């Protein structure tokens, strides 16, 4: 080889080396993991016995629900005119688009948890952050774009009395093994629970608990829960939809640190210039109302059970402007007897007479349910 052609070597070798690095580093991180075998019950036990309650990390959420792109939809909604009834079109458009924003695409958040009551979540966006802090006595929510901090004082008596007041089963405190047993028996008729291949999530080895519906015709194909093999912390939840290779919905840690986060992260003091809004603590419903809500004519009802549950809303319970919203028009398609909002995990069927049927089942089942009523 001549001297000159040798000098071309770096131009080939360095890009090749970089390419190898790009391919090899994620591969080595995902190298095969082999953990001691566990049954589904043992993995559930691992979760319920987990004592790990202090950690910090980055949570990533991705959704591929097959919804239209949000930016385009939001832009469209903004250019539409106003409306006269109750909730204005702008407001309902904003509601729909913020709900859609959370449902689609990728979001990242930094999460800090210490003990039962100290939580700090920071949702990332380009050059903006939404921060929520709760330390058991005060809860704060701050949006850097609006520069408004919302403060809720948590009543002192809530924490001490809540377990008895809010939990109807307080007297039958279940031990972790009992809880695991109970979960298994409750799920057994509808769901097959298996332990998948061991893997790695956020650099930690995990068992994968896979829940698969025993019935056919549901949109959800399986739910996989990754459980940290050491601490029993659930690190990732993946929902797969039938006929879709990418997970329809996934939320999990992309990195995690099991040390106790600094205590001052949970003491929140808004700076000067921040608009502080006080909000009353939502009063808990009085004790005794924990029996299933009486089925009044305007409340939602459920049809079927397990994976095939269909939630039905009678006419006139949804704000009228939602039905008139031009954005909803763009999101839904015309089907027999109404309009359909279709995603890979959930179908929502809006009948022409204003009723709403939603469930993780195929359209014809929703239509059948609508016709049966």
């Amino acid at each position, binding site marked *: 080889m001549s001297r*000159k052609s040798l*000098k*071309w*070597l*770096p*131009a080939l*070798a*360095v*890009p090749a*080396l*970089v390419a190898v*690095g*790009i391919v090899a580093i994620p591969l080595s991180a995902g190298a095969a993991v082999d953990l001691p075998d566990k049954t589904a019950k043992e993995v559930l036990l691992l979760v319920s016995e987990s004592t790990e309650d202090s950690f910090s990390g*980055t949570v990533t959420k991705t959704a591929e629900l097959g919804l239209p*792109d949000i*930016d385009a939809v939001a832009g469209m909604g903004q250019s539409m005119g106003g409306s006269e009834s109750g909730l204005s079109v702008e407001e309902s458009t904003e509601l729909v688009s913020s709900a859609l924003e959370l449902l689609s695409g990728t979001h990242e958040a*930094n999460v800090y948890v210490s003990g039962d009551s100290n939580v700090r979540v*920071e949702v*990332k*966006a*380009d*050059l*903006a*952050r939404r*921060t929520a802090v709760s330390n058991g006595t005060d809860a*704060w929510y*701050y949006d*850097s*774009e*609006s*520069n*408004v*901090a919302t403060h809720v004082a948590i009543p002192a008596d809530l924490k001490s009395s809540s377990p008895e007041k809010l939990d109807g089963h307080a007297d039958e405190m279940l031990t972790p093994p009992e809880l695991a047993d109970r979960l298994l028996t409750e799920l057994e008729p509808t769901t097959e629970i298996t332990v998948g291949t061991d893997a790695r999530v956020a650099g930690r080895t995990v068992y994968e608990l896979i829940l698969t519906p025993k019935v056919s015709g549901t949109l959800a194909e399986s739910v996989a829960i990754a459980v940290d093999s050491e601490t029993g912390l659930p690190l990732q939840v993946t929902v797969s939809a039938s006929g879709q290779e990418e997970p329809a919905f996934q939320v999990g840690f992309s*990195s995690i640190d099991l040390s106790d986060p*600094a205590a001052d*992260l949970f003491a*929140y*003091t*808004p*700076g*000067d*210039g*921040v608009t502080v809004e006080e909000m009353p603590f939502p009063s808990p419903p009085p004790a005794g109302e924990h029996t299933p809500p009486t089925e009044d004519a305007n409340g939602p009802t459920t049809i079927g059970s397990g994976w095939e549950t269909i939630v039905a809303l009678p006419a006139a319970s949804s704000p009228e402007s939602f039905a008139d919203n031009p954005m909803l028009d763009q999101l839904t398609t015309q089907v027999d007897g109404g309009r359909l909002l279709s995603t890979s995990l959930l179908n929502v069927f809006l009948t022409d007479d204003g009723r709403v049927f939603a469930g993780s089942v195929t359209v014809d089942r929703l239509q059948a349910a609508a016709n049966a009523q």
Partner: protein
Amino acid sequence: MSSPDLATERRPGPGLDLLGSELSVLFRRRRTWAMLAAVALIPILLAVAVRLTASELDPGEGPPFLDRVTQNGLFVSFTATVVAIPLFLPLTIGVVAGDTIAGEAGLGTLRYLLVSPAGRLRLLLVKYTGAAAFCLAATLTLVVVGAVIGALLFPVGPVTLLSGETIGVAESVLRSLLVAAYVTVSLLGLCAIGLFISTLTTVPVGAMAATVVVSVVSQILGALPQLEWLHPWLFTQHWLGFAGLLSQPADLSAFGSNALLQTGYIAVFFALAYSRFATKDVLS
């Protein structure tokens, strides 16, 4: 800066000599000073415009952080940085990086540089270091001038972070310097691309324009949602990603991934530049 270096080194290598002369030529050029002055104009114009308008901005209106400027002058730095990153900084980097080799070739001074025993690799390294030093100078100008003009025209106090909490002035200076470091690192990949393009031609203006075009094209690709698979590999991807440095606690993960990405670009394009330059017949 070179004299203490020379004093401590017993036998200064030709590389250090070369670097010293390269830096002094670069920073003695009127063009360099004109560009730094133009960079400094961005925060000054911003601050004066905000000072002269009576109407208060609604939160979230205008470029990021602009509504905070009236409350705290230190935010001028951040707004100016955000405004300058997409076009203005790449433009100045394009001029400096595109000029590195092509400029010498165009002036006919390249062969004299190569007469010295320094070697072509060393010349490339020195040229790249010079361009990188300009990146640092440009971002520091932006941040420092922004802070100074902000302090002159507006009240200065504890800085409200993106979490709504405040930090003291001393820590905010540290955060500003971190942002400057972040932006400098962001531009190093473009610098390497400019260096490579500069070895391809003897027409400096062509290399400068091509470098700027590359940065604009990369940003356009980054804005197309259809090309989402490509986005993590674009060198412009993390350019505006310094929000983590302004949150509480400071989140350095974006800094790390940005640095890794830029290192990849530097490695690839420096290797390409070396191979091209080492095999090139230098005629001028």
